[in-house]
Structures are given as structure tokens and as C-alpha cells.
């Protein structure tokens, strides 16, 4: 019975994507609640799957069309996949609860077509991302990657104006990424005759390590690295995050790149780990991640525009996650996954809040946020907590993930470990500079003359506050997060790599 849920996890949002535009045209008022209900239902399914994998420690598998093993496509949710699915579906609920154009004033309501399109795209995005997390088939992963990408292009472009250009740039980068990945998968298929991850892992050690294999690994790594915004392939990210409309931006910034990081972990860290080229790709990733941490932090410091600053800080955070994936020890993976959770919650909160405010004010300049503390103390407090988490200050989730990441990079040792350690510290220092500069304005400076009063629409304030509470709880109850959520996922990866040896 529970096996069916694994299939339902993908099927439900996919059906939603088809259904949403129709419902929107027929009955626009009900669409928001239908969408919210559907996302909630998907989340419930993900929670059930997660609870089962956590309780039994075993993966839940669903064979599509009843085809067994290496021949058919297998959806399998182990601890790691279930965690990603839980995160994606959970965050989608926060975003789906808000009206499509929540940040554009109460008077402007989206037209039925727009409503259907945006809501459908969000559903499709969830389907694609959950699919990436669940599938065990490398070609099927490509399909889900494309599904999610198409949905994201739509969401970004729905911002209108300059967002269209950003979406187009993202489309070009994303298509290049998909093509590279597909080419790599083609090589692998030619070499091994299989597309199933477990089958690949079993057959690859027997394949002669020639240029074709190296090319396959390089292509796959490069393709996914673009999607995961690994420095220096991050160029698409800032514009896409900044120009996407606020509710969608909250979701995209929270999970989009991270699911690609998951795919990197699955393929490089697990399936391709046994071969020399895979190990080399991981090593490169540590160094590039380290650079990304620094460059992202530095660029964020240079921004005047608050959403753009947040976007660059995402580049920095993705660097931290990917360098830990590259290190690959259980401690590093725990740090990476804790950081995935912490950063998704905090960044979602910040993008919904700051992005929403910037759109209502019509200005992203961080000075426009001055005086928010007087005007809306609760929103300001929520953003403060999320910012503390981004810097890595207690008592938030970001503090715990940073502690794990620092320890992991020290335990790794060697030049790469030390460089990562220093870069992580430096990036927190930079984050302190650019976030506290904003917080100083929010709390201690008066609202500038002639600026409109800032007010976050209620529909956005609720998710912002609840995400901030989660950030706080995640920090105070780090032990619970680690034990219940992260450790099972780490075991799933570590267990798989241990089996190979």
C-alpha cells in the first residue's frame, strides 16, 4: 500500500499541473484552495513515506508499469530521497497558500489564465523535483530535470518585464545543462548498457577506465553543476531569483538548486564514486565550492539591492553545500543536508519577506527597508531570525549546520579541508557584514522621508512567520533535526557506498 504512495508523490502534482489551468478558467475563486489542498496532500504523502523510511530504515520502491529491476523505471525513496521530497513538498505548501500576485497589492488580482498558468507551473515544478529525488533511472532523472526546468522558466517569466529576459537566460543555461547531462548519460549507456543507478554502480567497476568514461562523468558533473549553481557556472542564478515574482521566488530560491545538488550527491557521491574520474570530480567540487563560498559572499556584500544580495548569498550557500558533498564523509554529508534544510527554510523566509516588500514598494534598494522594525515588528523579527541563520548565529538552524560543516572540513584536513574551513569562516564574516547592515536599517533607522510605508501582505506574512519559527526550532532542537531527519539520509548514502566496497 505504502509503495503506491511513492508513485502518487509524483503523479499527484503532475495531475495538479494539468488540472490547475482548467479549474482556474472555470472557477477562479476556488483555484487557490484547490492548489493549496493538493500541495498539502502531496506533503502528507511525502510525510507518510518519510515516516516509514525513518522507522524501518528501508527504502520504499515503486516499479512504474510493474516492470522489474534494471529494465523498468524504478522510483525508490530511501532516507535521503524522502528527506528531499519532504522539504520540497513542505515548502511548496507555504508558497501555494499565497495568492499568485500577493505582492502586487490587494487590488490587483491575477487573471484566470495567469492564475492557472502560475499555479500549474508550481505543481509541475514540485512533480519534477520530487521525481528527481525519487527516481533510480538516470535517463528518467533527465526527464524530471527538464520537467522542473520548464516549470521554473514559466514561473520566472511570469514576473513580466525584465523577468522575461532573466527567464530566457536561465532557459539557455538550463538547456545547455540538460544537453550536457544527457550526453553523459548516453556515454554511460553505451559503455554499460544500463540506465538503472544500482545496475550502473554494479557494472562500472568492470568497465575499462578510458576517455569515454571520463567524458561521461565530466559531462554529467558539468550539467548538474550548472543546475546546482556551482561556481563558476552560477551565472543564471541571481537574475532568475531576483526577477521571479515573490511567492514563486521564495520556493525557487529555497529548493531549486538544492535538488540538483542532491542529484550530484546521488550520481557522483554514490553511483560513480567507485571510478577514478568520479573521485576526481568530487575533489574538484570541493575546490570550486570553496571558491563559490567566497565569491558569492563577496558579491553579496557589493549589492545595494536587497533581493540581489540574497541571490548572491545563495551562490555562497550552494558552494558550502557542494563542497561538503565533495568531501563526502558522513559528517560532511550531515553538514550538507543540515545546511540544505536550514538554508531552504531561511532563504525561503527571506525571499518571501524581502522580495514581497520590495515588490510592494516597487524598489529593491535595501534602504527602502529602513524603519520596518517600528512599522511591522513581527515581520522584522522573522527576517532577523532568518538572517541570523544565514550568518550562522545561535540559536538558529544555520548555527548548527555551520558547526557541522566546519568540523567536517577540519576532519577532512589537507589543503582542501583547510581552504574550505577558512572559506566557510570568511563567508560567515561576510554574511554578518551584509545582513547586519540591513538589520541595522530595519531596526535602528527611521523610515526615509517620502517613502511609502512598508507592509507585507498578510498572505505572505503568514508563511514568513512560520518559516522563521521553523528556523528557530531547527536551531534549538538541532539534536532532533539531526537524529530524525538528517542521520537517516546520511546512512542511506553511506550505506550504499559501504555495500559497494
Amino acid at each position: 500500500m505504502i509503495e503506491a504512495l511513492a508513485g502518487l508523490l509524483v503523479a499527484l502534482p503532475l495531475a495538479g499541473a494539468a488540472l490547475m489551468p482548467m479549474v482556474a478558467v472555470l472557477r477562479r475563486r476556488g483555484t487557490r484552495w484547490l492548489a493549496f489542498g493538493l500541495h498539502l496532500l502531496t506533503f502528507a504523502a511525502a510525510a507518510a513515506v518519510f515516516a516509514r523510511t525513518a522507522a524501518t530504515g528501508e527504502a520504499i520502491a515503486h516499479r512504474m508499469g510493474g516492470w522489474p529491476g534494471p529494465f523498468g523505471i524504478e522510483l525508490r525513496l530511501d532516507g535521503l530521497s524522502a528527506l528531499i521530497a519532504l522539504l520540497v513538498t513542505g515548502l511548496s505548501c507555504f508558497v501555494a497558500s499565497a495568492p499568485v500576485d500577493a505582492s502586487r497589492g490587494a487590488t490587483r488580482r491575477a487573471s484566470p489564465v495567469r492564475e492557472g498558468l502560475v499555479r500549474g507551473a508550481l505543481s509541475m515544478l514540485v512533480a519534477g523535483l520530487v521525481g528527481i529525488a525519487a527516481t533510480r533511472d538516470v535517463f528518467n532523472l533527465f526527464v524530471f530535470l527538464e520537467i522542473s526546468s520548464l516549470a521554473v522558466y514559466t514561473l520566472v517569466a511570469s514576473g513580466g518585464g525584465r523577468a522575461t529576459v532573466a527567464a530566457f537566460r536561465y532557459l539557455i543555461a538550463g538547456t545547455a545543462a540538460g544537453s550536457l547531462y544527457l550526453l553523459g548519460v548516453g556515454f554511460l549507456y553505451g559503455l554499460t548498457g544500463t540506465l538503472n543507478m544500482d545496475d550502473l554502480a554494479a557494472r562500472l567497476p568492470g568497465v575499462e577506465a578510458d576517455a569515454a568514461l571520463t567524458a561521461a562523468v565530466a559531462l554529467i558533473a558539468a550539467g548538474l553543476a550548472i543546475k546546482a549553481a556551482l561556481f563558476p557556472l552560477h551565472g543564471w542564478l541571481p537574475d532568475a531569483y531576483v526577477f521571479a515574482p515573490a511567492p514563486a521566488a521564495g520556493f525557487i530560491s529555497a529548493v531549486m538548486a538544492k535538488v540538483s545538488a542532491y542529484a550530484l550527491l546521488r550520481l557522483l557521491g554514490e553511483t560513480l564514486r567507485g571510478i577514478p574520474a568520479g573521485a576526481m570530480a568530487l575533489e574538484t567540487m570541493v575546490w570550486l565550492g570553496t571558491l563559490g563560498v567566497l565569491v558569492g559572499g563577496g558579491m553579496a556584500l557589493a549589492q545595494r539591492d536587497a533581493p540581489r544580495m540574497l541571490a548572491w548569498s545563495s551562490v555562497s550557500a550552494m558552494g558550502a553545500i557542494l563542497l561538503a558533498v565533495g568531501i563526502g564523509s558522513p559528517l560532511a554529508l550531515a553538514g550538507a543536508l543540515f545546511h540544505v534544510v536550514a538554508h531552504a527554510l531561511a532563504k525561503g523566509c527571506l525571499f518571501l519577506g524581502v522580495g514581497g516588500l520590495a515588490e510592494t514598494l516597487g524598489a529593491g534598494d535595501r534602504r527602502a527597508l529602513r524603519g520596518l522594525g517600528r512599522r511591522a515588528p513581527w515581520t522584522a523579527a522573522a527576517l532577523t531570525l532568518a538572517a541570523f541563520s544565514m550568518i550562522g548565529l545561535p540559536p538558529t538552524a544555520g548555527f548548527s549546520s555551520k558547526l557541522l560543516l566546519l568540523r567536517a572540513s577540519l576532519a577532512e584536513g589537507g589543503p582542501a579541508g583547510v581552504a574550505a574551513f577558512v572559506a566557510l569562516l570568511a563567508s560567515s564574516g561576510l554574511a554578518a557584514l551584509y545582513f547586519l547592515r540591513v538589520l541595522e536599517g530595519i531596526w535602528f533607522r527611521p523610515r526615509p522621508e517620502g517613502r511609502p510605508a512598508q507592509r507585507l501582505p498578510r498572505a505572505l506574512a503568514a508563511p514568513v512567520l512560520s518559516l522563521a519559527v521553523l528556523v528557530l526550532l531547527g536551531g534549538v532542537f538541532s539534536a532532533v533535526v539531526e537524529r530524525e531527519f538528517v542521520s537517516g539520509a546520511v546512512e542511506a548514502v553511506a550505506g550504499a557506498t559501504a555495500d559497494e566496497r
Partner: protein
Amino acid sequence: MTREITTILPFIPIGAALAAAMGIFQARRFPGFRETWTFLAAGFQLYTAMAMVPYTLEGVILVTPELPFLPGAGIQLRADPLGMLFLTLASLLWLVTSIYSAAYVRTLGMRHRAGFFSAFSVSLAATAMIALAANPLTFLIGFEVLTLATWPLVVHKRSSKVLRSGRAYLAYTLLGGQLLFAAVAWAAELAPGADFTAGGFLEGAAGDTALRVLFALFLVGVGTKAAILPLHAWLPAAMVAPTPVSALLHAVAVVKAGAFGVLRVTGWVFGPDLMNELGLDIALAAAAAATILFASVRALGEDHIKRRLAYSTVSQLSYIVLGAAIGTPLAIAGAAFHIVAHGFMKITLFLSAGVIQVATGKTRISELGGLGRRLPLVFLCFGLGGLGMAGIPLLPGFLSKWNLAFGGVRADAMWVPVLLVTSGVLNLAYFLPIVRIAVFEPGDPGQVSRPSRWLLLPPLLAIACALVLGVAPDLGAGFWSLAEMAARSVAEGDAPLTAGTR
């Protein structure tokens, strides 16, 4: 020998202060409630601290159960002698300062009072956490929270100039916090799950160079708050804060958290033996000596009262660092007692300076002429505090300096007494002129309003405590015994007789 009892009692002082912070914020529309909450919390914190002291004095150490945080790192409190000394001091002076703050905000008609009082409470909760931290992680969390909670207090006046000072304050303290974070993560890697252990736990955990780098990280981390040269510049800048903040936080809680951290790192993480082996004691002592002399000379040239006091704080904090560096039991006892002695005397000085400012609006020493007759009690307090700073007998500063000097002699460092005497003379040279100008130099006192008696009471209370401590250092909270026990435990180790004794 010591014995451990597992109990949740040490959580209470932190909980009380946090509850007050929330209560004050809730009651932000009811002026009377804010002070009531503050008094209740300060009183309760002091009460619980005093209730725990007798256990500590008998050699019983109260330990909380470990709250799991991350694998190999938990949050735990442990009421050992050094921690109890700091906690009792902080909560006692919090109560004294609360009386002063209540009168101060009324007299000056300060804004944002709810935020002021609740940030104050959070700072005291963080201080209690630092005092009782059983392991580096707990210490680090308290340390970072203290930095953040004091920021709104420093920038309380909200002007651009003040906000700039606030940035300098944060830049120093957060940078220090980051390096401490690095040090704590590293120590957790070298010795997983290690608690603060009297005599240190890092011996042989890594190579010499690595340990030296780790020591530097630790010391820059805690030393920023302790204002060791060249990390001291934030403290004079932070004097833009309202006087109660300067008095309690920048003479007692924040800077002493740094000095206390230096003692913890030298005595409970590295240990005197390891420091000696690596040559770290000499380096630290040199830094402390340089700070003492530099800051004393710098204080001579300051005309702004609070800034002169700040430089005096910088110099006095390094007495504690010096004691930690010397590492003999006498020196550590002297250093630990100096946390208390300096606390009482410096708060007297700050509160007196605050009364002068409230009554006359004057903040510069050169303007004080003729004020001695108008505010005799204030200048009496000020003079006694200054004498105590210089280490005159019968005031508590004497006891700490005496032990520091002898601790130095025992370690064959004959320059320590010389340094202490020199610094004492410098202390007299920059404190006595303030009283001399006020009492003997003619001048136009200008408009002098009568300070409210609630403003006068706290400095009198503080100097009375100081006088009592100078003669009977063990009366009441047993500060001297606590300092001595702490020092002895570093030399002998305080491991319980049998593991797992309840």
C-alpha cells in the same frame, strides 16, 4: 575533593532572565511592569545564585543533565567555583544597576524603554550561560547571544554617529565570535565531547604548532571582549551607550565575559602546564603587560570621563589576563578575585559619572571645577573607587593585586610586582585629578539639579559592598573562597572522587 550532583538548578538563573525579557516585551505598553519584571528577574537570579553558592563552597558541584545538541556536542551547565563567582557578581550588580536604570530612564525621558530593558535581560541571561557553561559549545552560544543582545543597547540613541560606533562594536565582537567559533569547532574535532576540565584537556591532542594556532584562535576570540591590545578599540567606542549599559555591560558583563573566557581557556582548556610547555604563557603575559601600560597612559590623556573610565577598564582587564598567563595558583586566585573587585569599583565609578552627567549635563573632566561642594557624595564614591583601582589596602583591589604580585614572584617573574606598582601609580595619576579638580579648583558649576535619591543609592551601595569586600573578602557570597577554590582546582584538577557520583 569534589562531588557532583545532577540537577536542573543551574538552568534557573538563565531562565529567569529570559522570562523577564519576554515579560517586558509583552508589557511594553505598561511602564510600571517593565521595571517590576526587571527587579523580579534580577532578584530571582541573585537568589538562585546565592542558593547555589553554599554547595559550591562545600565542594559540591551542581551539574545539569546534558541536553543533546549535535552528535558529540551537548549543552550543559556546571556550577563550578569560577562560574559561581562570576554569576553571583553579575546578578548582584544587575540588581544594583536595575535601580539605577529605572531612575535614569525616567530622569532623562529615554525612548524605546521596553526594548532597552528586555535586551538588558537577554544580556544577563547570556552572561549567566557563559558563567555556568560546562563545555566550549555552551560557552560559545552564550558569547554570541551576548554580542547580539548588547548591540541594541549600544546604539540606543539611534543617531548616525552612534550607529557607526555600533558597527565598530559589532565588527570587533562578531569577528572575535567567528574566531572563537573556529576554535570551538577545532577543539571539538581534536577532543570530541570534551568538557571544560580544570587543568586543561588538550595535552597531546595535536602537534605543537597546531595547538599554538588553536590557542591564538581561542585567545583572539575571547580576547576581543576582554579588550586585549590591539583588540581594544571597540570599548571606548561603545561608551556612546547610555550610562547603565556602560556600567553593567562594559564594566562587568561583556568585558568580564571576555576576561572570564581567558581564564577558562588558559585554566580549563589548555592548562598552565601545556601553556608553559608551548611558551604561550610568556606571549600572553607580554600582551597583558603591554595592554596594562598602554591603556593607563592612554587614559591619562582622555578628557571625556566615560572614555577615561573605558581605558581604565581596558588596563584593569589585563590584570586578569596577566594572572591567567602566569598560571600559578596565587595568580589565578588573584585574577579571579579581580573580576569581583574591579566589578564593584568600576560600577561605582560609572554610576557616579552618570549621576554627574544627569545632574549637570557635564561629561568632560575639565568642566568639573566647583562641583565637589554640590555633589559631595558622588565625588566621595568616585574618589574611593579610584583609590580601589590603584590597589590601596582596605579596598578590594589590594587583595587581587597582592596575590597577582606574589603569584608572579612564585613563578620567578619579578617584573610582575614592578608592573603592578607602576600601573597603580598611573591609576592614581588619572583618577585623583578628577576629584581634585571637582573639590579644589574653582569653577562655575552651572545649573546643578538635585539628583534623585534612586540615582544616588546604587553607587553608594556598590562602594559599600566594595569597602566590605576590602576588609572581609569572604563575607556574604564567599567570593575569595570561590576564587581560591577555582585556582586550586586548576592546579590539582577537580575530577570527582568516583565517576558518576550523584
